[in-house]
């Protein structure tokens, strides 16, 4: 990382604020479209017994549309936002370094239950990003899920998702 050229490359903007602003405004517009479409489907007028189900959401959809168009116009007329970085490469890498393991972790909960997945998640995170020794990892990685187990399953009787390993112990 000491090579200045490489550092500059790492500091390069992944995407500008302007692009993301436009993207978010367009997503809002899309949501407005969905809300308005669905409200018209179920009816946004007046039935014999009062307002229909889409009555309130319809206007919400219209307001989202107005607000997002206003945002869009504002962004389009401020070109200097295009030079501002929304996220730089190095930052983006750090964000992904936690986002991707998190997604895998949540997928793993479906398969092996939350306790085993938590042990693995904490271990991978500490090893990969913190470069801790295995004793420390084992300490934190095992004690935290075990504490959760005691707190939820034993004291407060709230069951958490469990997998094959817990079934082996009869839970």
């Amino acid at each position: 990382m000491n090579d200045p050229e490489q550092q500059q490359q790492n500091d390069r903007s992944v995407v500008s604020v302007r692009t993301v602003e436009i993207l978010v405004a367009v997503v809002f517009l899309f949501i407005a479209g969905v809300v308005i479409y669905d409200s018209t489907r179920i009816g946004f007028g007046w039935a014999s017994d009062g307002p229909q189900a889409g009555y309130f959401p319809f206007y919400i959809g219209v307001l989202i549309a107005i607000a997002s168009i206003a945002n869009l116009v504002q962004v389009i007329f401020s070109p200097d936002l295009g030079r501002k970085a929304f996220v730089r490469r190095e930052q983006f890498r750090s964000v992904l370094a936690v986002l991707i393991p998190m997604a895998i972790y949540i997928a793993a909960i479906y398969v092996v239950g939350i306790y085993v997945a938590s042990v693995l998640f904490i271990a991978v995170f500490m090893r990969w990003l913190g470069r801790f020794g295995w004793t420390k990892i084992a300490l934190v990685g095992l004690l935290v899920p075990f504490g959760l187990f005691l707190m939820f399953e034993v004291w407060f009787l709230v069951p958490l998702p469990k997998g094959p390993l817990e079934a082996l112990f009869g839970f």
Partner: protein
Amino acid sequence: MDEINSLMQGFGVALTLPNIGFMFVGILLGILIGVLPGLGGANGVAILLPLTFSMSPTSAIIMLSCIYWGALFGGAITSILFNIPGEPWSVATTFDGYPLAQKGRAGEALTAAFSSSFVGALIAVIVITFLAPLVAKFALEFGPPEFFAVQLLTFCSFVGLGRGSAFKTVAAMMLGFALAAVGLDTVTGQLRMTFGTVEMLRGFDFLIAVIGLFGIGEILLTMEEGLEFKGVHAKIDARVVWHTWKQLPRYWLTALRGTLIGCWMGITPGGATPASFMSYGVAKRMSKDGAKFGTGELEGVVAPETAAHAAGTSALLPMLTLGIPGSPTAAVLLGGLLIWGLQPGPLLFVEQKEFVWGLIASMYLGNIVGLIIVLTTVPWWAAILRIPFSIIAPVIVVICCVGAYTVHNALFDVVLMLGFGVVGYVFKKLDYPLAPLVLALVLGDMAEASFRQSMLLSQGSVTIFWSNGLVASICGLAMLMLFWPVIAKLLLRLRTPKLPAERPVE
């Protein structure tokens, strides 16, 4: 004095041994939550909410509200010692708190922060004690149009008092309403925006949104900054506390102003964060040492802290009396009330006297307990922050996932939480405010119900919202708040016709 009597009964409820125990646990958990990045008042309470389902509502709310007080105290610790605001409302505390700590006066800064938060909260609780029963009595006569008008006022104040772009506030808020509408419509029994999926049937629970937006979003932001905690060591002993307390009375006017700003911003839901900035700005303009603000003035710590704590506390007033929370954390507490089977609103003061006054009494006690705990345990909390982020982050992620799962025992909610986390990250970076989104998500069904009932009463004519003096004045006030930025600009131009619109940099 009816209120004093009820309050004394409330102390009777709050001063039982288990409830005092819950108070201590709540304060300690709250400070921990306030200190840790990624866990804040709102999502901390949201995660712990499912654990209280089996407790008595009074004990549960005492513990949860104490978590809230604890989080308010805890935010100051990280701001002053580490220059990292643990909570958004303590950002303004870093301006003078951290320079003070760098000068070796961390103990004084912390004592000043805690003491002034305590004063702000105490005055706000006194306001609640005497104002809340009046508001509740008044609100007993509200019909659907009045309730909708108050909700309108709530949301208009967000737009008017918000610091960022008004259209972004509207967009975020309406997104909250739209998400609240997803699922079964309880009036007509029709499905809305589920698009034939079973998972969407339940709709979006705001607890999931809160945990994702504030918890996961914050973790992502912290990762991005590559946070390394470099803190100043602090020691607080009786001598420092005494020395600081002797200086504090000098700032009584600043504290009073901060408290008033805080109470106002808490009741009209501006929230603790803008309140703290506003109070800091006003103090800077009014103080004779204003020029020295930012270099380490005790007054610059007093101003935001009184306001933040007063706002955080008084946010509970509209929640209890009208069922309209003044802050995201108050919104989560409101969700708790509904889950425990209590209907927030004016009737609460009639039907659940013991609960309401027990809670108000616990606010007095909780803040006293909080002040003592926080003054005596600062070094421990500072030590927690020295634990590397690569240990804290995965543990917080695990806790968030567990919290999201336990709301409905549904794994899909955990996936949704991750989605909300990404949304929270993007919104924070683009200055889309999160608080109105959460509040709209909480109040969506209620606002829709009162709007529909009003429309039924008037057979679809919006004139019902100015059909009598009360509802018309609330709506008028709402419009005033909505267009406040424009009005304020006009007023400023009228008052200073020649000078260019130049304002001191805050």
